[in-house]
């Protein structure tokens, strides 16, 4: 009888073993999964990870909504799919005033998908609506760069005082608060797309809730694709928009976007050929990296995001900058990215990623345990043993837990400090961060535009996202001075000084710069890796002639030759 139990256990273990090991081995193909297109002619099936909150440019605040908006709407400028340099879109050209604060855009004649002509008023309407407190846009702050934007959102000024004016039906003037050198790059962001004023008025007339204007039965857009079907939490279907000004260069006929949240499920669907591209926002599980790296359809590129730990600089013992710096230096970031996150991330102690828009990174040391121990001793804790308790909180996620667990061990092994880990449910975590109810708290920050300011702003005194309780008049003044500066070179120098000043105090511990890892079927062309993870469907196409047995070059670099960008 005892035998039966034993045998069944053995069988159980065997089933597991066989099933799981066959999952990884016997892979001789250089590609991960199927290599033939399985859907209609020039039809692309992708994933967009979850149901977007809003598809309304004025209200959207998440990347899943942004992905759709970027492909269904077109702004004044568009980002080059590889370099992200601003290219003409609805605006054919523009003038900039000498002080760099006033831009005048000249619009090409173009049409909404219902044939209605698009004018400068549609932009004025959209941008006023963005900052109007009545709209309740979570991204209203993007409109604070415009003259009077902040005052309007606080209800202190009338909406029509916004520094965005239609000079005639095809000339738009934009007045900025500061001469932002990154303005044109930022302008391709989804918050700044035009909105069909005529459609919203029409819906109001018919007594339909205006909030529903992005539903497929109503929606009118001006981008490369238009939505034809939207199955809640399942998939959306898009078809080529024939009214699009650049419709001639759009190659795909149809794009089907699924909403699969689990990255493992999305990966399975990719292997089975249901997805041609599991999408830009679907990350791949860290455990699979070693395995996936072998395949030709695996790609990875740096991404404009920094993973770091906030330190609450008012709670002892971390009110002492020496201890904060010791903690930072004791982290072996190279080992962390190589063995834990595994996605080719770049270990970094800098807040601003190196090389961002011509900015030369600080290149602070990424690991120096000797100096870390010296700093800790200087702070009065030579062995680390008697340091009062420190807790590191993170929101529940496999990835955050892995990083926290590794860093906890590094602090233990290098400094002798025992840090307690605390898993928190997302909203509890956010509430604790808002109320400064933590000692160390994990955070990731994705830059909205390619400029160091998107990261450096985090440490200013009046920034609502500054969760360090650290504030410095010197720092604030440096950033203010940089923003007023019209000379880009000089401006970057001031910003660099500010970053060095802040990191000397270590109100946060930067860990690494993000990378985006993705799987792209070898027959899909026209996808470029770029650091803002923008992948316009406009340039994508299916290469029916692709032969997996032919020694082919890397599809990403091959597609580069095919680019047709109108400059």
């Amino acid at each position, binding site marked *: 009888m005892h035998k039966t139990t034993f045998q069944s256990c053995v069988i159980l273990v065997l089933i597991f073993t066989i099933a799981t090991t066959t999952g990884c081995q016997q892979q001789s193909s250089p590609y991960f999964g199927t290599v033939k297109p399985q859907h209609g002619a020039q039809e692309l099936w992708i994933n967009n990870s979850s149901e977007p909150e809003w598809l309304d440019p004025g209200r959207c605040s998440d990347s899943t909504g942004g992905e759709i908006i970027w492909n269904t709407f077109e702004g004044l400028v568009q980002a080059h799919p590889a370099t992200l340099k601003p290219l003409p879109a609805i605006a054919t050209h523009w003038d900039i005033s000498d002080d760099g604060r006033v831009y005048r855009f000249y619009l090409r004649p173009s049409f909404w998908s219902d044939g209605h002509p698009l004018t400068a008023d549609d932009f004025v309407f959209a941008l006023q609506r963005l900052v109007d407190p009545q709209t309740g846009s979570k991204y209203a702050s993007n409109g604070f760069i415009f003259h009077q934007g902040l005052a309007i959102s606080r209800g202190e000024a009338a909406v029509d005082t916004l520094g965005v004016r239609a000079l005639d039906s095809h000339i738009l003037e934009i007045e900025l608060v500061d001469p932002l050198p990154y303005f044109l790059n930022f302008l391709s962001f989804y918050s700044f797309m035009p909105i069909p004023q005529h459609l919203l008025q029409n819906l109001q007339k018919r007594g339909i809730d205006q909030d529903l204007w992005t539903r497929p039965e109503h929606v009118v857009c001006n981008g490369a694709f238009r939505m034809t079907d939207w199955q809640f939490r399942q998939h959306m279907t898009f078809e080529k928009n024939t009214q699009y000004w650049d419709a001639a260069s759009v190659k795909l006929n149809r794009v089907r976007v699924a909403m699969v949240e689990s990255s493992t499920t999305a990966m399975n669907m990719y292997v089975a050929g249901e997805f041609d591209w599991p999408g830009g926002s679907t990350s791949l599980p860290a455990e699979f990296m070693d395995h996936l790296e072998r395949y030709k359809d695996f790609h990875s590129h740096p991404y404009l995001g920094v993973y770091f730990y906030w330190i609450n600089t008012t709670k002892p013992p971390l009110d002492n900058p020496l201890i904060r710096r010791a903690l930072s230096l004791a982290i072996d970031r190279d080992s962390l990215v190589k063995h*834990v996150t595994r996605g080719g991330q770049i270990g970094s102690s800098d807040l601003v990623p190196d090389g961002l828009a011509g900015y030369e990174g600080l290149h602070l040391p990424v690991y120096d345990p000797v100096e870390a121990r010296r700093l800790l001793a200087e702070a009065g804790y030579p062995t680390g043993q008697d340091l009062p308790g420190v807790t590191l909180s993170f929101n529940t996620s496999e990835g955050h837990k892995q990083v926290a667990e590794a860093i906890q061990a590094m602090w233990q092994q290098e400094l002798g400090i025992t840090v307690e880990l605390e*898993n928190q449910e997302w909203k509890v975590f956010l509430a604790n961060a808002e109320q400064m109810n933590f000692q160390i708290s994990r955070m990731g920050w994705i830059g909205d535009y390619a400029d160091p300011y998107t990261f450096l702003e985090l440490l200013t005194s009046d920034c609502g996202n500054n969760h360090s309780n650290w504030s410095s008049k010197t720092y604030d003044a440096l950033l203010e001075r940089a923003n007023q500066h019209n000379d880009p070179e000089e401006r970057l120098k001031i910003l660099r000084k500010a970053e060095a000043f802040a990191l000397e105090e270590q109100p946060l511990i930067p860990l690494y710069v993000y990378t985006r890892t993705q799987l792209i079927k070898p027959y899909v062309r026209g996808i470029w890796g770029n650091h803002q993870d923008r992948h316009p469907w406009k340039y994508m196409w299916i290469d029916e002639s692709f032969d997996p047995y032919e020694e082919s070059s890397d599809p990403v670099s091959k597609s580069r030759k095919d680019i047709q960008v109108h400059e």
Partner: protein
Amino acid sequence: MKSVQQKIVVRTKSNEIDLIAGTSLWHDAWKRLRKNTMALSSGVIMVSIGVACLCGPAILGFLWGYDAHTQNLAYGPQPPSLQHPFGTDFYGRDLLVRVLTGARVSLSVGVLAALVAASIGTIYGAVSSYNGGLVDSFMMRIVDILYALPYMFLVIILVTILGKSLLLLFLALGAVGWLLTARVVRGQVMSLKEQDFVLAARSLGTTSRGIIFRHLIPNTLGPVIVTFTLTVPSMILQEAFLSFLGLGVQPPQPSLGSLINDGANQMLVFWWTLVFPGGIMALMLFALNFLGDGIRDALDPRMKI
């Protein structure tokens, strides 16, 4: 049913004599259990797992210097070998030590919580059903309400107000664990209480308390033991879920539930991280289950000795 009734009636009448003679229900049961090799070997397995969990980590630490926390990132996840019979995990930690350490926590939390839940549920269900009528309705609606409440919010609020503690963990696990047992026992007792032996006991003047504890509950032990064995694994997995909410065992401290969770995430790449923690849990369940069956059979006077 006749033989049962007679036996119980006789036993109730001559309780003291039975005690003197030393042939009580429990004595009989023990005699029967001793003959059930399956149950006995299961017991042995349970005891060995318990002993391994208690002493294993210390012995491994003493002999090879392994502990559950020291990481070796460069070594990373390695398949089972002579040095590491269960392999190593994502951080290069010996999995055997971690499984044993984790099983120690989970075994005590899971089995204890399930035991408490089974006891509360059994008594609650029996009392509710025996009394019937309004009392039963009231008590069962309380069960329904507890079933329906949004559990996650309950836990989140408890953690916020009371802070995390082992006691709260038990409370959170026990809060829902007993509900199923209560319903199952209630159903059984509804049938049992109409049977002749209960009538007989009542006519002999046995108190309600006596009837519930001496006559009804022993007769529901079969389903109770089954629900108990169903509760243990769900408690162990539930603990892992609670640790995501900040309650329960926090990393880097292992628990069987969190090891299985991590293992499931990695199973297609590092199969051993699932197979060993999962295997230990399965083994434990097998043992618990056959031991439970054995106890049930042993307590059934109708089974031949």
